Structure formats: structure tokens, C-alpha cells
């Protein structure tokens, strides 16, 4: 019943190119891994391997252990696969007879079941330890407390004990190992699901409406750390960016004092303030000292203390502010800020007023 086939020689080109291809692949992976860990000094690349805070550090150490084990498993199995594919290929001379028909081997199968079970036990214990260390970490009295509220498509940050309300750019003090001052965040949502992810500082935790969550960071270095929303929340999920400024204690205290002050009242820009107070702006935005108490959009009291607007989508410049108010869709199409349809004169006055809100 056997069909006579044209005899095939061992498919050498296929075998060799396959092995070479995979060797290139492995080399490439190692190169990439090296590139990942060698991130530039300025934190512009938010690599999970460039950790600067205790939770992110714990995760990184655990990941080295896990990558070691999985890397070893890969090498062993890949070597077996390569060996089998080369050694047991059908040779022309020997093609007529079938090989020995082996149905199984209890000892071998037992061995390759027990060893993976042992690996699983070890991995599980290592993992459970880190889960507990991060999730059940005690909160020291000196911790900074922040309530983060996710909105479509911006971040509200409140410091309840300090009386501060700000948006999108989080300031925290650097935490010294000898005298830790971590920041504990309570995570809430005003609408859909969001997720707070600053890879260099901690793993991500979701902000789910009607389901308060918490997370903590204790950064060891000052600097700016980048992140963004990591749970699809609607049209502009992609531009719900995060900027975490880790300040020295002095800088942090100065920032806090600045934020605690009421809005600057510059009488030269009363016309612009009048525009704010008599149009729909104040339905969504709050500025202390004005009629504006809206909470749908970011608090603008200290707008100019932030480097970006629209949750990181644009630099905070007069030109961008003007464009954002006039036509938000040009910066962030689908954001919930409506085009305000102000006259040029009103718009200019308003922008000049906003620029005084240090």
C-alpha cells in the first residue's frame, strides 16, 4: 500500500538554514535584552529593567530569576529539538524500513513530569514572597498620601493632607533608604477603567470605578519618570500620559507651598478672568478665587506650574493653550474638551489670564 515517492536526500539547506536562523534569533534576543537594560541616563526610555523604586526593583530581581529559569528550559528543549531534527532525519539509504515502533517509557515520562513540578514549586514560592512584600507593605507614618482619580482622558491628583489638587503631573519626594518617605496612592476612577503605569517606579495597578485600589512607590533617584494609562478607557486612551517628578525634599516642599497658595490674582488680566467666569469653562474647571468649581476637567489654579497640557499631549505654551481651547481635536481628537468657540479677542484675553496662573 505504500506509494512510491521520489527518494529525497536529507534536506540539508533547510536544516542548516533553520539552525542558523534560530541562532541569529537567539543572538538578536540577547542583543535586544542588552539594549533594554542599557537605557539612557535621562529616563526617556521607561524600561521595566531600569527600575528606580522599591516595588520596581523587587519585580526586576524576581524577573532575573524567572528569566534565568525559563532561559535554561528554552536552551535545553531547543537543543533537544535541534538534535532530533538533524540526527533522526530520514536518510535515503535506510528509507524502506520503518524505525523501531516505541510506544512510550514510564521512567522517562515520570522524570519529565516530576522535574517541571519541582520547578513550579520553586517559582511559586519565590513569586508568593514578592507578591506579599509589595501588596502587603506597611505604610510608614511619613508616607505622602495621594488620591489619584482616573478620568477620560486625564489624571486628577489630590493630596488630601496637604490640601492640594492638581492634574496629570505628579510630584513626589525622593525616598531615602535610611528615612523612607514613600508615596502611597489611592486609586479611584470617575468613569471607566484606567491603569496607573510608570514602569520605572512600580508595576501597574488599575483604577476601576466603584472599586478603590491602592499602590505605592518609593523612588530612590530624583528625576522625571514617564508612564501612561495602561487600560483601554476610550478614544484617547493613547494620550493619557503620566509624568512623575521625583523631587529633592526641598524642591518638593517648595512645590507643595506653591500649590497650596490660592490662584494668583493679576488685575491686568481681569478681562481674561471675566471670560472664564462667564462662559462654560467654569462648568468643568476649577480655579480658586473664581466662580469656577467644576471637577469634570483638570483644576487650573496652578496651570502654569505644569510643563504639559492635555495630559502630556502637548507642551504647555501659549500657542498650544490657544489651540487647545479653540480646537482640542487638533491635539487630542476625541477628548472630552469641547471647542469653546470664543472670539479671537476673548481667546487672547483668556490665554493671557491662564498664563498668570503660576
Amino acid at each position: 500500500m505504500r506509494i512510491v515517492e521520489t527518494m529525497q536526500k536529507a534536506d540539508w539547506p533547510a536544516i542548516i538554514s533553520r539552525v542558523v536562523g534560530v541562532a541569529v534569533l537567539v543572538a538578536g534576543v540577547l542583543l535586544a535584552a542588552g539594549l533594554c537594560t542599557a537605557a539612557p541616563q535621562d529616563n526617556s526610555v521607561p524600561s521595566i529593567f531600569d527600575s528606580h523604586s522599591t516595588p520596581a526593583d523587587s519585580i526586576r530581581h524576581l524577573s532575573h530569576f524567572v528569566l534565568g529559569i525559563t532561559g535554561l528550559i528554552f536552551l535545553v528543549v531547543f537543543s533537544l529539538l535541534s538534535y532530533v531534527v538533524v540526527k533522526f532525519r530520514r536518510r535515503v539509504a535506510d528509507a524502506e524500513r520503518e524505525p523501531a515502533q516505541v510506544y512510550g517509557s514510564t521512567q522517562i515520562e515520570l522524570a519529565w513530569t516530576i522535574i517541571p513540578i519541582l520547578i513550579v514549586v520553586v517559582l511559586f514560592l519565590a513569586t508568593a514572597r514578592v507578591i506579599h512584600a509589595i501588596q502587603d507593605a506597611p505604610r510608614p507614618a511619613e508616607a505622602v498620601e495621594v488620591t489619584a482619580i482616573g478620568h477620560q482622558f486625564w489624571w486628577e491628583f489630590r493630596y488630601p493632607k496637604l490640601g492640594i489638587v492638581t492634574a496629570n503631573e505628579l510630584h513626589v519626594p525622593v525616598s531615602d533608604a535610611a528615612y523612607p518617605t514613600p508615596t502611597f496612592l489611592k486609586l479611584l476612577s470617575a468613569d471607566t477603567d484606567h491603569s496607573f503605569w510608570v514602569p520605572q517606579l512600580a508595576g501597574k495597578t488599575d483604577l476601576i470605578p466603584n472599586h478603590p485600589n491602592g499602590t505605592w512607590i518609593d523612588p530612590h533617584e530624583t528625576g522625571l519618570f514617564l508612564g501612561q494609562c495602561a487600560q483601554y478607557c476610550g478614544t484617547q486612551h493613547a494620550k493619557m500620559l503620566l509624568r512623575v517628578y521625583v523631587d529633592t525634599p526641598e524642591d518638593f516642599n517648595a512645590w507643595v507651598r506653591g500649590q497650596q497658595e490660592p490662584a494668583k490674582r493679576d488685575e491686568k488680566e481681569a478681562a481674561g478672568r471675566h471670560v472664564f467666569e462667564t462662559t462654560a469653562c467654569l462648568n468643568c474647571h476649577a480655579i480658586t478665587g473664581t466662580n469656577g468649581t467644576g471637577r469634570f476637567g483638570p483644576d487650573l489654579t496652578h496651570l502654569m506650574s505644569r510643563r504639559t497640557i492635555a495630559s502630556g499631549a502637548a507642551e504647555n505654551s501659549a500657542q498650544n493653550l490657544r489651540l487647545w481651547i479653540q480646537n482640542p481635536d487638533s491635539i487630542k481628537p476625541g477628548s472630552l474638551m469641547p471647542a469653546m468657540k470664543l472670539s479671537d479677542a476673548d481667546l487672547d484675553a483668556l490665554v493671557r489670564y491662564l498664563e498668570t496662573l503660576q
Partner: protein
Amino acid sequence: MSSDAIAIQTAEAAGRPWVETLHEWVTTVDHKRLGILYILYALVFLIIGGIEATIIRIQLMRPHNDFVSPQVFNRMFTMHGTTMIFFVAMPILFGFANYLVPLMIGARDMAFPRLNAFGFWLTALGGFLLYFSFVGGSGLYGAGSAPDVGWFAYAPLTSRAFSVGHSADYWTIALLVSGFGSISTAINIIATILCMRCPGMKLSRMPLLAWLNLVMAGMVILAVSPLTAAQIMLSIDRYLGGHFFDTQAGGSATLWMHFFWIFGHPEVYVLIIPAFAFASEIIPVFSRKPIFGYPVMVAATICIGFIGLSVWAHHMFTIGMNSYANSFFVFTTMAIAVPTGIKIFNWLGTMWGGKIQFKTPMIFCIGFLLQFLIAGLTGVMMSVAPFDWQLGNSYFVVAHFHYVIVGGILFCLFGAFYYWFPKITGRLLNETLGKLHFWLFAIGFHLTFDSMHIPGLLGMPRRIYTYEPGRGWEIWNLIETIGVFVQGIATLIFVANLVLSYFNGPKAGNDPWDAWTLEWSVSSPPPVYNFASIPTVASRRPLWDLKHPEDPDSHYE
């Protein structure tokens, strides 16, 4: 005798009006024709889903690109995921199961032929409904069109407050309808396997493909039911004043997540287990040895079926479950890696000591072995919950599951096509085109999905229509997009091979691969009644016993 039947069929077919042929196909209850319908349906949606993926990748090729608007992009990733899972992977695997299971167990058809047709047409309707949303989804304020809530449609994004119009409803109802189709097919597979095996075919003598489809069918029933319930609850929320998932009225967003992932995780085993089935039939034949450790392969699959129902919240490690709950799901997820991993060893054990023929079905399965190994290991990485707090919802996850679905399932599917196309059509697919298809596709696959792990490690979340420059993500996104085009060309070569070989391929005969299961004992294509007389079997490889009467399997097992 069976060739006479074909000759008669062909002669008749030559003179018949096309409406009669069409009518026959539309009203068929023959498992073979329904299998082919499922497969063709899925192939059409594979092309459509692939176009959606290409649009996504072109948009992400460079930062701040404006190839499509954010609204269109969000519809693209939603439709790509929903299409590929529900209207490509599931139908194509049901199609192969439908075609092969009765033939491999010596039956003349499935247990419930009309239920079979019902299941197919329900699935077809579901796909049509989902795509009708592009045209008909305009709802309130003209907002609508295709759903844009992601394939897992998290609440409360799907509530009326945040999903205006009817696009979310098209998602819900299309999947609800096709879910009933899936359950129908699952019931049919179970009844067929349990009740219609030929004499002598005890469960322990059944081909592994039948066993694995049995476990898959059980999982479909257990998994699709919670999804159906959740979709009904969502519709009640949206239209009948319910608040199951409406957080503004005290409902629970995490409740949706639990319901969805109790479906979603077993669903991925529903997809991979039939792929394992293909590998378990192809690898032995082209290594010229029986599968190594048949009883353990069966036991491991049943274990996967059970444990797979207990791991779902590893998709929810970031939602704020306490440390004990997280640890539980870490443990169950790591546990399931054991039966899954040892299958790889069994396949290697099958090849060990064999005489491997590198025909196209086999090289696709070898690609599957390498890629499934890598995919499984990245899965183990993500089972480590703290590591998942970084990797979850990033492009690392996207890379992982495409590695499983494309690198694992699709490669096995391609192997299955090259292996069983001769049985289904009577003609062999072209080997040269097959090897070209494999190599091009493998290169494109690795370009795209190897690279994709890296932006995840560098902080790139998923489901974003654009990204900021200067984060180290640009080069990898560009390489991924190039890989997509290479895979596209390879797929076109495959489709060309299918079409050309159907008309011009060399005749296959009954048994072109010198295989051992019952489908190779009948003509290619099989007669409509499958077997002239129902066979009696004495071992797991009845054709081996016939070809080697001096050394039959029945002496050993």
C-alpha cells in the same frame, strides 16, 4: 467501487445548473460539506482580519502617525481580535473537527447532522451581524459603526453612558448568536465521539485527534455559557434598566471581568487543543513512529481541561485582588504549564529514533514546536504576578498571545491543510509552494512577533493608536510592520496554492502519506457515505495493522 461513485458524481455535476449545486451546499447536513463551509468561511475572515491587522500596523509604524483616526484605529483592534477569535479560529477548528472526527472513528456522519448545519449557519449569521455594524451601527447622534470597546469589552466602557449608539450591541448580539452555534457543535462532537465509534474502537483506541476534540468540546460548553450570560446581563444593563456592570449605580466592573475571563481563558485552550490534535496526528506519521506516550497525552489534555477552568484571574492580576487571591491564581497558572509542557516532550519523544520526512505538514509542525515552546515560556513569565504587573496590558502580552495563536495554532493549521487537503479534494498541494509559504511566513512571523516583546518591556501599553517618540519604541514598531507584509505575501502564496492545486494538483490517491488512521482507508475525496462497510479495529493504528500483518500494534497495546 468508491472511484465509480466519484465518476458518477463528476459526470452528474458537469451537466447540472449552478443553482442546484448552490442549493445542495446551502441545505447540506453532511459533516464533510459543513466542515468545508466552516473552513472556507474562516479563510475569508482570516483575510479580513489580516487587513485589519495591517491597518493597525501601518498606523503604528511610526509615532504620531495619522494613517487612520483614533476612532477608526480603536474599531480596528476591536474587530481584529473579535474576528480572529470568533470567526476565524473557532470556525476553522470546528470545520476540521467536523470533517475528520466521523471519518477517524469509523462513523458515517456526526450524531446530529441537522444540529450541525444549524450550528454552522448560526456562526455565519454572527459574523455577518458583526460586520454589518460598519454599515448599520449608527445610533444616537450618528455615533456608532463598528464596535470600538476592545475584544473583551470591559465594563463600564460598554454601558450606554460611554458607548453611545449601537456598536456595542452588534458586538454583544453577534457573539451571543455564534455562541449558540459553538455550543451546538460541541454537543454534536461529544455525542458523536461517545456514541458512534466503530466496533473495536474503545476510547483507549481512539485517535488523539478525537480525544482532544472531545476535551475541547467539553470546554466550549463550560466556557461559552458564562460569556452568553454576561452578554445577556450587559444587554439588560443597556436596555432594560439593569445595573449589573453599571458602576455609577453601584454595579461592578470587576464582575464583568470575572465572567469574561472565565470564558476567555478556557477559550484559549479550546483554540490550542485542536492544534495539539493536528500535531499529534502529523508528527507521528512523518517520524514513522507512533505517538510517544498516548495514555499520558490523553491524561495531560484532560488535566489541562480541568485546571484551565481555575486560572482565569491571571488576566486580572492588576485589578487589585488581595495577595492571597493573586497567589492562588499564580499557583494554578504555573500548574497548568506542567501538562502543557510535557506534551512538547512527548512530541520530541515521538520524533526521537524516527525517520523524519521534511514534508510541508511536518515542517509546519516543527515550527509549531519551537514557537509554542517560546510562547509557553513567556506565559510562565507572566504567571509570575509581580512580573505581570509590569508586563500585563503591554505589548509583551500582545506578543505572547500572537506567538501562541499565530506561531502555534496557525502553524499547526497550515500543517493540517497540507496534510488533509489531499483527502478532502483528492489532490496534493504543491510542495515547493508549500515550503516557500513556510519559510516566508516564518521569517515574517519572527520579524513581527519577536520584536513585539521589546516595546512591552520598554513600557508600551496595548490598544494605543499612537505613541510618543523618544521612548525607544519606534524601531521595533517599524520592524513589526515590515514583518506583517512578509506574512501577507506568504498567505497569498498559500491561497494561490490552494486554488491552483484544487484544479491542477497531482492526484493524491487514498493514502499519499502512508498514514495509519481510518480516514486514509477511503477514497480521496471520501464517498458521501464515508465507509462502504463500517470497519472493525483492533488497535490505535488500524492501517498499520493492515500494512504490517506480521507486527500489528494490537500485539503491544
